[in-house]
């Protein structure tokens, strides 16, 4: 089972995502933004970072990268696709997921250990969690406030497409404490916090993040 991790210019957490995917037991493969080639991977991760400096809007430029045409096609065909942080922003800009991520409400970049509750464990990336399970993983971004119109929000809520919510005080102003969402099919997940930084207690606040990567392994083997 091969998981591809895309590197855009300015991507930062690509090596961490590769590490997490291999620790989970998959074969992790690095993909380059400028090559429209998925190298036969079974799932793709868009990692965190500041692609193209995120100067215009986060993810706005990367979504046009050559590799993204392939990613969009494959994801529309059901391939598991996870966007973490900047990757989530790319997914929204590419309209693979609804809404947008905007400046944190207090305007600061915020890095902290964040408690989340898993609300949907039937996606390709969350099946190893139980519904209602609380996990602790790092949150780190400047533009993590999830915004969308009321209609979209109602739809996300009623269709159970909220994958994870922040527990406790709202860290960034996201509507309905949304930390992550999925598409109707459940193969595409966007998540603001960083599970790849919580795969061992030595370097992360917990190993709670590993479940995202083991989930996809199971989803593929099935």
């Amino acid at each position, binding site marked *: 089972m091969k998981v591809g991790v895309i590197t855009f210019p300015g991507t930062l957490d690509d090596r961490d995502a590769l590490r997490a995917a291999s620790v989970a037991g998959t074969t992790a493969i690095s993909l380059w933004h400028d090559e429209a080639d998925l190298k036969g991977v079974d799932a793709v991760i868009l990692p965190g970072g500041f692609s193209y400096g995120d100067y*215009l809007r986060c993810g*706005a430029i990367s979504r046009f990268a050559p590799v993204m045409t392939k990613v969009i096609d494959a994801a529309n065909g059901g391939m598991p696709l996870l966007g973490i942080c900047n990757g989530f922003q790319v997914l929204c800009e590419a309209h693979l997921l609804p809404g947008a991520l*905007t400046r944190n409400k*207090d305007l600061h970049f915020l890095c902290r250990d964040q408690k989340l509750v898993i609300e949907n464990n039937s996606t390709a990336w969350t099946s190893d969690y139980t519904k209602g399970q609380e996990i602790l993983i790092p949150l780190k971004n400047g533009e993590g406030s999830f915004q*969308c119109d009321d209609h979209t929000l109602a739809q996300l809520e009623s269709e159970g497409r909220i994958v994870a919510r922040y527990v406790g005080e709202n860290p960034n*102003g996201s509507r309905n404490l949304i930390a992550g969402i999925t598409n109707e099919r459940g193969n595409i997940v966007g998540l603001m916090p960083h599970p790849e930084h919580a795969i061992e207690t030595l370097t992360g606040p917990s190993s709670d993040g590993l479940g995202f990567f083991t989930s996809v392994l199971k989803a593929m083997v099935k």
Partner: protein
Amino acid sequence: MAIIVVEVMLKPEILDPQGVAVGAALPRLGFTFAKSVRQGKRFEIEVEGTPTAAQMADIEKAAATLLANPVIETYVVKVQA
């Protein structure tokens, strides 16, 4: 040579924390004129010669796809006087 200006603002219903922060900072500095503040972006695009209708259409398209995100933002395209 002409300068095309694209102004991008967050839609009124979208929270604008930057505008709110500026609005809160003003009275702390003794400025009391503002009822509210919104903060947006301004692009100055330099084009060769007088822009053609086709170019303007292109700029409009670039504004809608790249410079602004219509999910949360509105934009205006102007030719600078």
